[in-house]
Every structure is written in C-alpha cells, then in structure tokens.
C-alpha cells in the first residue's frame, strides 16, 4: 500500500510538469575544447547578468531567474542533446552560440514553441519573422556584418572602392561561408574584386593562405574566423607585414584573446561590432558589487569588460527585457516559452531604456516586429590598441545595405518557406 501511494505521488508530481517558480534560461555553453576561449567569457557574461537580476532586483517582475548550463563543446550533436535535455525544465529561450547548432534547432524550437535568439550568428534569413516564427537574430546578423565591413571600407576610401582587391579569409564551415553571397553581391555593386581563402578547422596552420595574400597584395583582408583561426591569422598577417589598418574581422574575430598572442604587431587591427566594448558602464559596477564581490560570479570575475563577456551580458539583458515585455503583454510574471516569444516579437530597446539599465550607448536602439526579427542591423567598428591592450569603438552604429541584404533574406527565407510548406506567421 505504502509503495502504491509513493508511486502515485511520483506520478502526480511528474504529470504536474516543471514548477513555474523560476524563469529558466538554458545556457548552451562551451567551456571546454578548442573553442573554449571564446565560449567561456560569453557564458560568464550571460550567467552573471541573470545573477545580478536575482541579487539586485529579486529576479524579473518578482520571479527569480534560473540558469541551466549545458556544455556543448561547440559540437552540433552535443548542442542538440543539450536542447533535448533542458527544454523540459521550462526553458524560455535558447541561445546556442553556434551556427551549426542553430541550424539543427530551427525546426525543433518551432515545433516545441520555444523561441531561439541567435544574436550575430545563425541563419541570417531568420530575420524574416514571417517565415521563421520562433527564431530571432536582432540586433544584427552576418550579412549586416559583411555590409558593415564594406561600408567602413567605402568610408575609408571616400565612397569609392571600385577596383580594390579584397580577400576574405574564412572558417571553412557553414558559419564562415555565410557572408560570401552578400560580399559577392556587394562586389558587383561597388566594383571591388573579391577573392576567397577558406581555412579548414581548426585553423592552426594557414601558411598557404597568407603566402597567397602576400603574392596577391590585396588592399584589404576581411576575416570571418573563430577560435584559434583568429589568433593564427592575425599572427600570420603580422608575419608577412600586412598593414593591420587594412585588416578587419567580423565580430567573432574581434576579442582580446584574438589579438593578444600577436603582441604589438596586432596594433590597429579592426573588427565590426553590434555592441559597445570596455567596462566603462554603470552596469559593471553593479555586477562587481552584487555578483563578483559576493562570490557568485560564474567565472573568476576577471572577464568583465572583455568583448565576449560584454556580448554574453548583452544577450542576457535582451532576454531579460523580452521577459519584461512578455510579462506586460500577458499580465503575468510566470511566463511560458510561447509568451516569451511574444515578448521577443514586441521588444523595443531605446537609448533611454539602455541608460536606465546602466548601459548607455552600449548598443543600438531598435524595435522588433512580427516581420522583422533581425532588428535594424546597425554596425559599428572597433579597433585594437596593443599598447593599452584595449578595444575602442571608433565609429557610431551605422545602417547597413538593407537593399542588398533585404533581397537576399527574402530569397533565402522564401526558398526555406517553400521547401517546408511554411505559411505566413504574420497574417
């Protein structure tokens, strides 16, 4: 009898599903493996912001947040396993920090009615919310990044890069190939000559690519790298004495650890970005006080202000603001993943709001709509100063070529919708 009652009690508990006492945020992180150096600061920033909200504000709307971390090792199969093992916890939003994992999760999150945020990575055409109902990539995507690079080069050349030679050194993967189509279109539009130089995983050996750059003498080199590929490329560029002022990377090739190995020779290297850099923001004082000094930091607390820490923190802030929006829309603090999706689709980030959060001018102002899940795609440029070992934002967040990008997004998302018989999400 006792055994029967116990079994019954367990059955009732399981049928009741996950308790809604917490707002659950899975963190599909990678703290091990060849890409750990990039994964760790992002995961720390993501975790520390939610800890800050719990410690300082008592959660979001009075409900505590709970981070569920799962190690993916930047491996797509492990990432999918992490998704399957954490979604039952009541996960509100996934941020897999991997384009490979993102592609695998798109059909899954749509079927499970859980939103996914792929900020600055993933499937670019997911910006079309009419097709990708559960995927968001605000405030910027890869094609904004590619266009941002070209816009910067246009500015540096008084609006004329006709006949210039630009080499793209890219990670030979789905991620690295993302900007090619956009750059090809922009090459046609602006008349520059684009050459493609793929680098195989992990990118420890790039002699062939850089010997070719030395032979071809391009005016500019653009990098779309991740992991050790970034450090080796910057070192090889220094080795062949390529002018660092003419070397510019995407935002995944522009962190401190990418340039430190090359020492002084990396001075002047640039990278595009969709958020600000450095630790001169009031929010970091709060993180120091409520999270680091109280021993609750996810890491050693020494990553604050680093590019990827800031990005992780920014991603968490955008998730938290979407929760607040969802709570307002649905009039409840205990939101579901479906409500979270609504909150993300109605998210509005203003400079006033950012300043109130202790992050003035940290990122662009934008509004998400049902049709536009990608935000405005404003891109800034950062530059590395080897003497002070700091990145600095050297431009405002500026618009990218929406004419070219919009057409490509419409084409790619249209093909996806046709293949998968997807009807309009925004009718």
């Amino acid at each position: 009898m006792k055994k029967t009652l116990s079994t019954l009690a367990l059955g009732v508990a399981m049928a009741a599903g996950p308790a809604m006492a917490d707002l659950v945020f899975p963190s599909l992180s990678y703290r091990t493996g060849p890409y750990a150096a990039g994964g760790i600061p992002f995961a720390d920033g993501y975790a520390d912001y939610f800890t800050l909200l719990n410690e300082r504000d008592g959660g979001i709307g009075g409900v505590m947040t709970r981070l569920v971390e799962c190690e993916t090792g930047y491996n797509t199969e492990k990432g999918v396993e992490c998704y399957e093992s954490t979604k039952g916890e009541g996960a509100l939003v996934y941020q897999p920090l991997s384009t490979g994992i993102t592609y695998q999760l798109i059909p899954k999150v749509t079927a499970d009615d859980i939103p996914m945020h792929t900020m600055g990575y993933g499937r670019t055409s997911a910006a079309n919310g009419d097709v990708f109902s559960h995927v968001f990539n605000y405030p910027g995507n890869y094609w904004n990044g590619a266009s941002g690079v070209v816009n910067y080069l246009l500015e540096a050349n008084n609006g004329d890069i006709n006949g210039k030679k630009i080499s793209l050194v890219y990670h030979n993967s789905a991620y690295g190939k993302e900007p090619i189509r956009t750059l090809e279109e922009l090459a046609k539009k602006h008349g520059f000559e684009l050459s493609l130089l793929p680098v195989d995983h992990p990118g420890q050996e790039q002699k062939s690519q850089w010997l070719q750059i030395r032979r071809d003498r391009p005016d500019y080199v653009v990098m779309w790298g991740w992991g050790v590929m970034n450090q080796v490329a910057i070192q090889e560029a220094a080795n062949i004495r390529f002018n660092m002022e003419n070397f510019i990377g995407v935002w995944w090739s522009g962190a401190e650890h990418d340039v430190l190995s090359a020492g002084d020779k990396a001075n002047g290297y640039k990278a595009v970005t969709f958020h600000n850099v450095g630790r001169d923001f009031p929010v970091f004082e709060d993180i120091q006080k409520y999270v680091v000094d109280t021993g609750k930091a996810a890491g050693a607390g020494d990553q604050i202000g680093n590019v990827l820490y800031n990005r992780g923190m920014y991603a968490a802030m955008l998730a938290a603001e979407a929760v607040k929006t969802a709570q307002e829309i649905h009039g409840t603090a205990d939101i579901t993943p479906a409500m979270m999706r609504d909150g993300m689709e109605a998210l509005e980030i203003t400079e006033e709001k950012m300043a109130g959060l202790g992050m003035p001018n940290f990122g662009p102002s934008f509004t998400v709509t049902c049709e536009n899940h990608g935000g405005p795609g404003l891109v800034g440029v950062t530059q590395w100063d080897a003497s002070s070992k700091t990145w600095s934002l050297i431009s405002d967040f500026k618009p990218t070529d929406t004419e070219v990008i919009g057409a490509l997004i419409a084409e790619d998302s249209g093909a996806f919708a046709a293949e998968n018989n997807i009807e309009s999400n925004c009718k």
Partner: protein
Amino acid sequence: MPDSLLFGTEVVLNGLMAGVLYALVALGFVLIYKASGIFNYAQGVMALFAAMTLYGIMVGQVPFSHLINAIFGTHIHHFGWEIPAILAIIVTVVVMVAFAWLVQQYIFRHLVGQEPIILFMATIGLAYFLEGVADLMWGSEIKALDVGLPQGGSFWIEENTQWLGMGNENFYGFFLDQLDLIATVIAAVLVIALVAFSQYTKQGRAMRAVADDHQAALSVGINLNFIWVLVWSVAGFVALVAGIVWGSKSGVQFSLSLIALKALPVLMLGGFTSIPGAIVGGLIIGVGEKLFEFALGPALGGATENWFAYVLALVFLVFRPQGLFGEKIIERV
C-alpha cells in the same frame, strides 16, 4: 624567372618548414610506439599540457587556483613572481618526467601483455583525462607564450633573394618565417640528439633492445619499467618542444591538442617506428600539401591541405603499408 616558378619555390620552402613542424609532433608518437608498441593518442594533449605547464610556471600561476578558490573561497591566482624561460623549461621537463612515471606506474604497468587495441584505448582515456587536468590546473584562457623565439618573415632572406625575380615587380623575395627556421634547427638538433642517445648511451641501447624484443631485454637484466618511464619522459620532452613551437605561433590553447591530426599522415607515410621516417614523412607531407594547394587549390575551392595530406599518406600506404621507413611486417605461420 617566371612567377609560377618563383612562387612555387617559395611554396616548397615553406612546405619544408611546415613539414618540420609536423615532424616535431610525429616524433613523440614514434618514440613511444617504437619502444612499447603503444600508439599514443595522448601525444597532442601532452604537447598542450607541457606548453600550459611551461606558461604557468613562467608567469607564476598557482596550479588548480580556480578549484582552490571555489573550495576555500580564496582569491589566489599568482605567486607573484615570474621565472625566466630557460629555468621554466627545466622545471617543465621535471614535470613531464613525473607525468611519465605516473603514467607508467598507474596505467601501463597494469596493462603489460594486453592487446595493442587495449593499450590504444588506454591512451584515449589518458588524453581526455590529461586535457581535463590541464584545464583544472591552468585554466582555459589562451596564453600568449613568449620564450624569446623570433617571429615574422626574415628581412634578410627577403632582401637577399629579391634578385632572383630579375626585376619582376610581383616578386618581393622569398618569405620564410623566422620561427619556422628556428624550429627547423631545433628539430635537427633533436633528431641528432635522439639518434646519438639511442646509439651511444647505455640507456639508449637498452631502449633499442626493449624496442626489438621485450622478453629478450628482460632476460638480460634490463628494467622494463625504467625504460618505459624513460621513453615516456623523452616523448614528454619532445611534446614540450612541439608545444613551445606551435604555442608560440598561436598562443597556448586547447586546439593545440589537435596538432596530433597533422602528425597522423606523417606517421602513415614515414612509418611508426622510424625517427628519420618521421622527419622525411613530415617533409613530404608539408611540401605535398602546400604544393597541391598552390597548384590546384584555387580550382578546387581551396582548403585542400587537411584532406590532401591523408590522400597522400593513403597512396603511400597502398604501396608500402609499413610506411617509407617502417619495419616490414612479417607474419610467421
């Protein structure tokens, strides 16, 4: 001289240098396989561990500091002193000898007489364990290793080879990385030292005897345990050298363990039991992959080096399964 010939020559020279770097990693595999019949999957991770240890010692990092801080609530990270590179290298060698003793004492001593596949599986386990220990001990962040090795293209070579272009505006002289040149010298010294050690020292001869026949070596009073510790120690030293060279190029980080992938085709080609084979194999792979990329890479979409190295090795395997310098496989029925 035509452009293609000049650039082709430059590619061959750089391929030779890259080959030397691959051979540095392959040497460690050869040493252990030759003496104990173990294909040491952990060789790449040993290079990573050795380089991380060297860096940690140089900058005075407290080992396991994150773990200590998490358990005791402390905030210790550094001892507050720094050690010159040469002294740190010596201390790291001592650590690698201790590592060799531990590996022999707690793993392979208990697996004597087991099938090669069991020993191989043990090294896989060792690789992942060691990677985890390295992470706990020294942290996952990228470490900018600077032991004073010069880097960057050699101005002298560039200037003194420019005349080969005979006025060709597209030719700027040959590019050769100073670090690659230093690595070549280091590899040459290492090979000479290893050959001299195995030929002219008592312990070296004992190593060769063990490699030829364990039972016979045992019967003449050679201490197998000691020899295996010695072999793992030498392999640890070779791993340290490889870790220093590769770590100087890209910073010391976890992807360093993947350099083992570059050594595999070298071993397939050069043979698992020959030190000169590792060098010659490395040179052939280095030149082969670079020349192929230079000649056909653009037509094939680039990034051909990783797979072409294996294709090249496979072609050699078909005609000579034991590799160029490997011992001929004779099965007596």
